């Protein structure tokens, strides 16, 4: 019995070593969840986009510093003499996986599909009036008005083949309500560096390098994509040699993996800010013992709360060094961010208490803090830490911790007095933050301005950003808005998240700020 076990073990070790040498170009890539669908316009979600970027391509891409780069479009500019039309020059000689040529007609079809009713990408194309093909390699996009930043919105809108889509009845994005499913959910035909070889949802997907790709042939020739939901199992899979790269590395494992021989961890800032938000307005809070007014509406109280927040302690203790404390509610990649704005005051309990007393709450008050517990890195632990810090200045906080699926509806119904949220900025421009977090809440704006902050003057400025084509003037307006947002303490930023990818020695996968790693960037040593 014992000898046979040893023999099996020896054989296994030998076979895995052999496999390691023979398939050096295969990357087994594990992360916590699977892409939701392969239909490129049906979900607007990072995991789904990350997977799709390997199969489908977009007009423009983004490099690891957040700059726009050419992809299916090689040039893009406003039409001469008309600042409401964007002109995209397309790449020559691009083929779809089934061999069809890529032309302007495919772009027109895809953009129209992406802004159709059932598409979750339509929000990013709300300013588009029409898309036309001028010739085979030129597309003109007529905007509703001047839209200086529209190219920022196309980095996750994938281009499908018109003929293939029409053959498979994919003109419309799937309609959930009607109980429909469609061909594109499980089948693909893109222009990207990899084509789909097999897909078993939630289990494993295999991608093979497409030899007709226009770019330089990638070092990774095969990708085995493995969703592993459990944190401990995912890390164990890396340590046992069953996978090569692990995304979504739990913070508590980063240091250990860095110190384990044979493995390394790449870290880098993510384009995501974590912040606390408050309920504004004079109406008394639902969760407070102060029943005749809203203490948070008093700027002195908000200042006191900021002085109670020890961002550095949260970075060191809760995040184990894996975060970047922030003084402004935007990640550093984003247009509008400045070092000056990002400065934050040192915590000062005495001054905070004095401010509370001055505001008329010498004994503090009570309030409930709503926090998700499975959405952001250590989200619940961050909130718990802040509860303790606020306790020191006399604010008694009850923590209401929920899974994000329950947290979101509470937040979106404006029912929270005090909450934690995170915000990514896919357009890399401050307007995206202002539109949803600062503008007064309406049907189309301020969706996550759930504390109902309202400043008509700012609203006007925010709207003007959408159509201002003079970039200097526009940036000046952004600076003005940030000044008010920061002075008013509309949001209480905590930190920017840091991303970590763990991998075995011998390969390097650089961190991508939108957490959309690209396997064509993998380097073997």
């Amino acid at each position, binding site marked *: 019995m014992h000898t046979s076990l040893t023999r099996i073990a020896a054989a296994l070790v030998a076979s895995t070593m052999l496999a390691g040498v023979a398939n050096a170009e295969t990357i087994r890539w594990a992360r916590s969840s699977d892409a939701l669908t392969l239909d490129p316009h049906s979900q607007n979600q990072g995991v789904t986009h990350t997977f799709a970027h390997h199969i489908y391509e977009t007009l423009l891409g983004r490099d690891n510093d957040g700059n726009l780069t050419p992809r299916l479009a090689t040039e893009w500019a406003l039409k001469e003499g008309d600042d409401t039309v964007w002109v995209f020059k397309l790449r020559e000689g691009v083929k779809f996986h089934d061999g069809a040529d890529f032309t302007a007609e495919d772009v027109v079809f895809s953009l129209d599909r992406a802004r159709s009713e059932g598409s979750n990408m339509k929000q990013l194309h709300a300013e588009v009036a029409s898309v036309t093909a001028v010739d085979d390699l030129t597309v003109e996009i007529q905007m509703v008005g001047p839209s200086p930043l529209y190219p920022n919105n196309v980095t996750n809108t994938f281009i499908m083949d018109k003929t293939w889509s029409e053959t498979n009845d994919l003109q419309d994005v799937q309609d959930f309500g009607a109980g429909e499913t469609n061909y594109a959910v499980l089948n693909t035909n893109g222009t990207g560096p990899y084509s789909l070889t097999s897909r078993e949802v939630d289990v494993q997907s295999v991608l093979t390098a497409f030899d007709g790709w226009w770019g330089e042939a990638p070092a990774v020739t095969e990708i085995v994509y493995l969703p592993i939901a459990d944190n401990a199992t995912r890390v164990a899979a890396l340590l046992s040699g069953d996978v090569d790269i692990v995304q979504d590395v739990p913070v508590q494992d980063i240091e250990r993996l860095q110190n384990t021989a044979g493995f390394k961890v790449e870290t880098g800032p993510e384009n995501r800010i974590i912040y606390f938000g408050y309920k504004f307005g004079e109406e008394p809070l639902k969760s407070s013992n102060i029943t005749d007014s809203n203490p948070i509406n008093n700027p002195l109280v908000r200042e006191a709360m900021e002085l109670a927040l020890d961002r550095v302690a949260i970075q060191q203790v809760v995040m184990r060094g894996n975060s970047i404390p922030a003084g402004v509610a935007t990640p550093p990649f984003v247009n509008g961010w400045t070092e000056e704005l990002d400065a934050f005051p040192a915590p000062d309990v005495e001054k905070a208490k004095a401010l509370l007393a001055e505001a008329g709450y010498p004994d503090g008050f009570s309030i409930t803090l709503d926090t998700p517990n499975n959405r952001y890195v250590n989200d619940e632990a961050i909130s718990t830490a802040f509860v303790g810090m606020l306790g020191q200045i006399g604010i008694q906080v009850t923590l209401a911790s929920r899974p994000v*699926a329950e947290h979101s509806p509470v937040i979106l119904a404006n029912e929270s007095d005090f909450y934690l949220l995170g*915000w990514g900025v896919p357009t890399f421009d401050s307007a995206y933050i202002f539109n949803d977090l600062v503008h007064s809440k309406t049907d189309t704006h301020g969706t996550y301005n759930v504390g109902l902050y309202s400043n008509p003057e700012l609203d006007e400025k925010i709207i003007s950003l959408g159509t201002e084509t003079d970039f200097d003037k526009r940036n000046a307006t952004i600076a003005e808005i940030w000044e008010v947002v920061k002075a008013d303490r509309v949001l209480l930023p905590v930190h920017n998240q840091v991303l970590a990818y763990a991998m075995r020695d011998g390969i390097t996968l650089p961190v991508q700020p939108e957490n959309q790693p690209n396997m064509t960037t993998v380097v073997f040593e």
Partner: protein
Amino acid sequence: MLAFIARRLGQSVLVMLVVAFIAFMVFRYVGDPVSSMLGQDSNMADHEALRERLGLNEPFYVQFYHFVVNALQGQFGISYRLQQPVTQLIMERLPATIELAVASSLIAVVVGVVLGIYTALRPRAISTAVIMTLSLVGVSLPTFLIGIGLIYIFAVELQVLPSFGRGQVVNLGWWRTGLLTESGLRSLILPAITLSLFQLTLIMRLVRAEMLEVLRTDYVRFARARGLSQRAINFGHALKNTMVPVITITGLQLGSVIAFAIITETVFQWPGVGSLFVNSVAVVDVPVMAAYLVFVALVFVVINLIVDILYFIVDPRLRDGAKTGR
């Protein structure tokens, strides 16, 4: 016998309806599918439109009525998360769960019964004391800890078994099995052991207690007095009478193994219905959650029915009772 089965069937239908009702009601409070489906870029008008399209604005009883009518036809709608028909998703993952459940139950029954008999026949041996102590540890450690522990020992440290997944699978018609490949079998070992431990202990303790009880009864003493061999007494007389409660427990446990393989499946990334359920809860995929609950209830109901019928066959007293119309 027929009347008995008919009565039990009637009860089963009632149970299913109640479960469907509860499932449906509970899932209205677990969260909002719309916000996880639409993501950060959506506005309030989009939310309202999608809620309307999904029929979430209709009154509760209308939604429940549609749910039951569709469920009766085997239709549970489209998964919000994966955009595929729920029935198809569950059917695709069922083989993985069943193979895991059967393998772990086999381990539990065989090892459990053997150890149970052994410890009953040698109540004072040191080995018995060791087994009983170990079994206490087995019951008190949570499943996920056992799973992670096994992964660390056998996958990370010794590197002899895979850390996750189901290995290579083979399609036999609609049944996708991992039992025919080496990697599939090797992948099965750790999760099957993990899942079996709790039932194994349960069965072992039950067999032991029943056996000790039976060995003390008069007819065993008489059998001994008549000079029957120890073997004939232990296995012919004692063990047979121990088995009725064991069948019940094993049957019910098989139900809970299928239903609650959730944790084991999650720890080992085993692609069964349990991990499908967990992934669905995270994003409030109501159609999958509701279908899964109804499915689990069905499993329990069917197994209970079978256990009752087995009782009928094994225990003559029940049969006589039925004949006299009791």
